[in-house]
Structure formats: structure tokens, C-alpha cells
């Protein structure tokens, strides 16, 4: 069910269904999934995913974690079919580097955590508190 505003945490049910599919595809390597709300693009949806087999172990060319944008579709409806689903994908080694460099995406996740705007959808061997320490 698409809500009128679509703001955090109104997509929780949709996110849970999506993550079920992610677990089907990456059951051995998906370690942490967090639904969160940064301060910008408040009607967009943000999902942080930590995978252990994420090749390379170094940040993207632009110096941050990989952020992929998915537009609204019938598979992930959003109000008026506008807005984006952002999936922020990383590995433990890459996240460590992002933390050391205090990158924009790392800062946004950390700020959302301190503001109580994070929801751990799935935890494997890692928790959000642990990765942000």
C-alpha cells in the first residue's frame, strides 16, 4: 500500500518484502540491511546493505560507497510513481575505509542512527551499532 507521503518509516512493509528477495539471492553473504532516513530527499527510500562478497574492497572512483538508484516501479510503488529507492552497497573492508575517510554516505548513515532514524531489517554477523563504532 502506497502511503500519501511515503516518508520514513512508512515503507517498512515494502522494504521487508524486498529484503526477503535479497536474502533469497544473497543468503550466504548478506550480513546487514538497514532502512534509514538521511536529512535530504525525505520522500525517497534509503537502504544500506552490507555484503561479505562484494568484490574489490575499495571505494568507488568518486571516493565513496556504491549508491544505486532505482526508480519507482509496480514492483516498488511510490506515491505518484515519483521518487527513488537508494541502495547503498558495501563490504566490511570498504565500509572500514569509508569510516576512516568519513565519507558522505557513511556520515549520513551515522547521523540517521544518532537521530533514531534507522531500522535494522536483517542482521547476520554484523549489527549497525557494531559497524558504526
Amino acid at each position: 500500500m502506497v502511503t500519501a507521503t511515503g516518508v520514513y518509516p512508512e515503507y517498512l512493509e515494502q522494504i521487508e518484502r524486498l529484503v526477503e528477495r535479497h536474502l533469497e539471492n544473497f543468503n550466504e553473504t548478506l550480513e546487514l540491511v538497514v532502512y534509514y532516513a538521511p536529512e535530504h530527499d525525505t520522500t525517497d527510500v534509503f537502504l544500506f546493505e552490507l555484503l561479505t562478497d562484494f568484490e574489490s574492497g575499495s571505494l568507488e572512483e568518486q571516493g565513496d560507497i556504491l549508491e544505486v538508484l532505482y526508480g519507482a516501479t509496480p514492483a516498488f510503488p511510490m506515491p505518484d510513481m515519483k521518487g527513488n529507492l537508494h541502495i547503498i552497497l558495501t563490504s566490511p573492508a570498504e565500509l572500514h575505509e569509508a569510516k576512516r575517510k568519513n565519507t558522505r554516505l557513511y556520515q549520513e548513515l551515522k547521523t540517521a542512527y544518532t537521530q533514531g532514524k534507522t531500522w535494522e531489517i536483517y542482521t547476520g554477523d554484523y549489527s549497525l551499532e557494531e559497524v558504526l563504532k
Partner: protein
Amino acid sequence: MASLFAHVWLEQALSDMRVATLLLQIAEADAAKDAGAGVEGHSDLYCQIASKCQQVVEKGIKAICLEFMGSTVSSHSVDRYIKTICLAPARRNDVVYYVQNALKSNRADIRNIIALVPRSPEGDKTPKNTEYPYHNASGSLVAPASRNAFLLNEIKIHYRLAGVILGRAKTSIALAKFNPTV
């Protein structure tokens, strides 16, 4: 969010596949000649076929990703393109879902072919690749074209995979026009 660039990657992948097919025909004839002479079948073209199949897989995956994602993926890593496709929201009857299942069920073969990307010899542990001399299990430097570096059965696995990925790329680009979820 289809990209204008998707079909360009697909076009090149189709050409690579044509070369792989032609090379496979020659290699099978080479191997048959060997067999006729009473030695184990071999062709120095096996590594070249593997190389072309690897290119088909990479370009096919990029075409699929561009078709589904537009130009929003900036990564150059094929593994990341695959994950980007596999994480996309999809319903059971979506093209994306069909592609995700193909990538999932061929994951091991995809990993194996991507690992063959050319690497210049360095130190004493250059991994097996399709282009440059590499170190075998006993530590000797061998040419990818040499006997036993690549085997026909192995090449056929790569060739099959290239066909599967290319098929999914063609379908994705053809059906995306009619599928509102892409």
C-alpha cells in the same frame, strides 16, 4: 529508465559471440585432427574462445544493467553490476525477475569466467587468465595457449554461459519496451 547505451553493449557482445562461435568450430576441428593422430585433442584457440566468452558475459551484463538502471551505475566492476541487477525490486512476472534468477543459477560459472580476466605476470603467483602467461599449480609459468592450460569441456561451459547471458540481455532489451516495470 532504459539507457540508449544498452543496445551498443549488446551489439558488441553479439559480435564477440560470433567470433567465439567461429573459433569454437576451428578449435573442434583442431581437436578432431589430434584425436585422429592418436593424441589427446587440443587447440591453441581454447584460451581465445574463453576470452571472447568472458567478454560476452561482461558486456551482456552491462547491457542488462544499463537497460534496467539507465546510467545511474557508475561502477566498473562486473560483480557490482550483477549485484545491482539482483537487488532491483521485481515481481515474479517481471523481466528483471527472470534475469535475476538466471544470474543466481549461474553464479558459480559467472564467477569462474570473470576470474579469467587478463592479468600481466607479476611475482610468482599470476592467476590463470586468457591472455598472459600465468603460474600453474606447480609454480611454472605457462602460456594460456599451451596444451592443458584450457580444456575443451571447460571452454564449452564458458560458451554455454555466454549464450545464456547474451540471451537474457537480448530479451531484456527487447521486452523492456513492453514491460512497464523496467
